[in-house]
């Protein structure tokens, strides 16, 4: 069976390689992709949208529908994973560990018992517990602000450099995951609760679609950001540039929230009790 699978993969790979021989040459000016719409984008995107990066202009403006549905695909995927992985049945864990903050004495409480709410000097720790790792925590404390700042930079500078909503969202989500790895799931959930991640992923899509809807209400076509000129108080060309930026923020929020929500679900096997 394994050999058959290998053979199938190799055959399919060979077929794909054979298929590439009919592709137009790299950079061929007479290829279908380069004859119809590409010249228009290359010549006019800067003057029409005031975005130096053609890719961003094409992605979020000319092909705005496409990107909107990509964002909703990500949102739907996050939702599907949520429904698949999240365990709602309240099955109490076999035992919980609590540690006394001052002395480090650890208590094990069996059969779903909990400490009384007022016991402030105890903190919950994971049952399969990785000890306090000074080096990793300090390194993450130093590195996290930089990663977050870089993620915001990538979102904000999608117009001028490679990047944009998707990439920035992924990096910011990775920063949250880094926090969860270096500390634990519990403290991360206090900072960014499960409910908020789901709301944010929906809100990101809402920002995107809502921008399009506002354009529609203002009498232009769906996602025609030039209509926003009146609201933003700039000329239509700059309005398109700013519209792209608003949409990118929506994408970034959605991607970040979906990524973090996925991590929560996967790391805690859907229980949100103890994590990786």
């Amino acid at each position: 069976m394994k050999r058959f699978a290998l053979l199938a993969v190799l055959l399919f790979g060979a077929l794909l390689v054979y298929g590439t021989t009919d592709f137009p040459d790299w950079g061929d000016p007479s290829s279908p992709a380069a004859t119809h719409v590409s010249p228009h984008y290359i010549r006019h995107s800067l003057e029409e949208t005031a975005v130096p990066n053609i890719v961003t202009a094409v992605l979020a403006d000319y092909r705005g529908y496409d990107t909107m549905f990509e964002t909703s695909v990500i949102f739907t995927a996050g939702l599907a994973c949520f429904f698949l992985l999240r365990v709602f049945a309240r099955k109490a864990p076999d035992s919980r560990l609590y540690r006394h903050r001052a002395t480090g004495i650890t208590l094990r409480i069996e059969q779903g018992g909990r400490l009384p709410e007022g016991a402030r000097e105890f903190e919950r720790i994971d049952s399969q517990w990785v000890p306090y790792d000074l080096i990793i925590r300090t390194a993450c404390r130093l590195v996290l602000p930089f990663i977050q700042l870089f993620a915001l930079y990538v979102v904000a500078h999608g117009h001028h450099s490679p990047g944009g909503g998707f990439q920035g969202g992924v990096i910011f989500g990775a920063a949250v995951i880094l926090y969860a790895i270096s500390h634990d799931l519990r403290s991360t959930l206090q900072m960014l609760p499960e409910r908020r991640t789901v709301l944010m992923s929906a809100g990101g899509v809402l920002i995107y679609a809502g921008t399009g809807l506002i354009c529609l209400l203002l009498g232009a076509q769906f996602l025609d950001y030039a209509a926003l000129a009146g609201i933003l108080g700039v000329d239509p060309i700059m309005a398109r540039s700013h519209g792209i930026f608003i949409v990118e923020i929506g994408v970034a929020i959605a991607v970040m929230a979906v990524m973090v929500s996925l991590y929560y679900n996967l790391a805690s096997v859907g229980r949100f009790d103890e994590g990786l």
Partner: protein
Amino acid sequence: MDIVFLSAAVFLALVMALTLYRAIAGPTVLDRMIGVNAIGSKTTAMLVLIGLIYHKVDMFVDIAIAYACLNFIAVLAASRYFQKKKGLYDEPQEE
């Protein structure tokens, strides 16, 4: 100068291929992780080299920073995962 950068990039790719052996063969999971981590740190340099070859350093530097961040997070996550969930205890012990 382009030829210098190009040959450096090719050499770097060969060095990465050497490390790939450890990532594929290397008897335990942790050996594989060392291999992958080494490839990751070389890739950061590789990305900047590619930027120099294409005369677009300012663009590729951003990608290199993003790659460095994600590489670090990936290695940390993998080691934490194997430490906590998967259990490295039944790995073959080499002598």
